[in-house]
């Protein structure tokens, strides 16, 4: 037991994580590409036309995975940030920093695709639907996290402050979500719900699942690329970095 703990902590040092990440990245890119090809095949050629919404419903094959990933990335980001705060492991804080832009991207994509879905279905680019509103707030939380980290010069202080913000955000996300949902039902908003709109056929579920996996693998790969850059930037004056680049 003791041995394995030490084993894992070894990868928590930037020096050993940097080459490990480098070896893993191609695999995640490959997985992302494979899942994306399979997912796109199902979304365009296998999944049948929806009786009510015609071909427009195919947007869910990117909208839903982007929404899922944006929420999931916030959780993962908060987890790494919290771990960095509790155990003072440098790589976990860098991981949180590397995830934030991708999370913001996913939230933005979710909003964009949501708007493009909403226009033909509801006749408006934006409706104050509970999910879309929560997603907008989530985007603000990502932007706040990034802005706070960017505004603090000392990277260690930036990590810790960001971690507290991420943890406060995690406590608040469910409260925000339920409050927005409650507000939405109270004000009798849209009755069409984005996620369960078409009678969820088995093939659609598969398509969504494969696309979600593709987005997931993509997020891991891009976060690893970014964390490698962050490691080099922050550790540039250490001896090992000087030998790490040939």
């Amino acid at each position, binding site marked *: 037991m003791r041995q394995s703990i030490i084993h894992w902590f070894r990868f928590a040092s930037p020096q050993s994580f940097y080459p490990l990440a480098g070896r893993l990245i191609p695999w995640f890119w490959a997985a992302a590409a494979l899942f994306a090809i399979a997912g796109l095949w199902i979304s365009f050629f296998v999944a049948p036309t929806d009786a009510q919404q015609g071909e427009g419903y195919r947007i869910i094959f990117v909208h839903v995975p982007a929404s899922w990933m944006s929420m999931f990335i916030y959780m993962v980001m908060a987890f790494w940030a919290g771990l960095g705060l509790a155990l003072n492991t440098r790589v976990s804080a860098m991981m949180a920093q590397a995830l934030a832009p991708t999370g913001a991207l996913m939230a933005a994509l979710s909003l964009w695709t949501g708007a493009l879905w909403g226009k033909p279905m509801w006749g408006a680019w934006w409706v104050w639907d509970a999910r879309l509103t929560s997603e907008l707030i989530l985007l603000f939380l990502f932007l706040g996290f990034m802005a706070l980290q960017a505004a603090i010069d000392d*990277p260690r202080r930036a990590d810790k402050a960001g971690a507290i913000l991420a943890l406060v955000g995690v406590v608040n996300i469910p409260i925000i979500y339920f409050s927005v949902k409650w507000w939405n039902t109270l004000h009798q908003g849209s009755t069409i719900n984005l996620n369960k709109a078409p009678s969820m056929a088995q093939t659609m579920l598969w398509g969504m699942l494969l696309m979600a996996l593709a987005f997931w693998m993509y997020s891991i790969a891009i976060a690893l690329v970014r964390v490698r850059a962050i490691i080099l930037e922050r550790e*540039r004056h250490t001896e090992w970095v000087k030998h790490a680049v040939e």
Partner: protein
Amino acid sequence: MLNVSGLACSRGERRLFADVGFSLAAGEWLHVQGENGSGKTSLMRLVVGLSPADAGEIVWRGEQTPSQEFRRDLIYLGHHAAVKEDLTPLENLRLAAALDGVDLSESDALAALIRLGLRGREELPVRVLSAGQKRRVLLARLLTRPAHLWVLDEAFNALDVAAVKLLGDLIAGHLESGGLAILTSHQPLPVPGGKALVL
């Protein structure tokens, strides 16, 4: 009583110092010397527990710091004025004591201010006082708050000859009664004895 070992500190990417250690027993004081930017203030902030050290440990009465007990025994006066400009010296002193959970009577506070040569300025807002007088208001806390360890960063700056002598006497008296002190300065200090630590 105070044992410091293996202390290391870096600011950003620059290593300020590494493997700094010293120990102080009752009645001893440490003179931390060094050029500008050598890390004197950083060392002080590490010792009192404001900043975390990269490595090393600070043990007070056999226990790791920072702890509530350590803070009870500690007075730290840094570069800042650490007084509220809108309050009078008397209010400053009494409120600072109340925040520390110390009950300070008005007469005791007045006595401390008079000892520091602030007679007649007790009721003026601190903002109208001179830099040296503001410093004296802060130094009055050394009299009103019982503490074993005094950590004074550049405490002799901005003081006139009389005040330098007064502070020297205060520190000497504190050491005689078994207290400890850590002082920084790049000039000789009017306090006898003392260990030296050059950064």
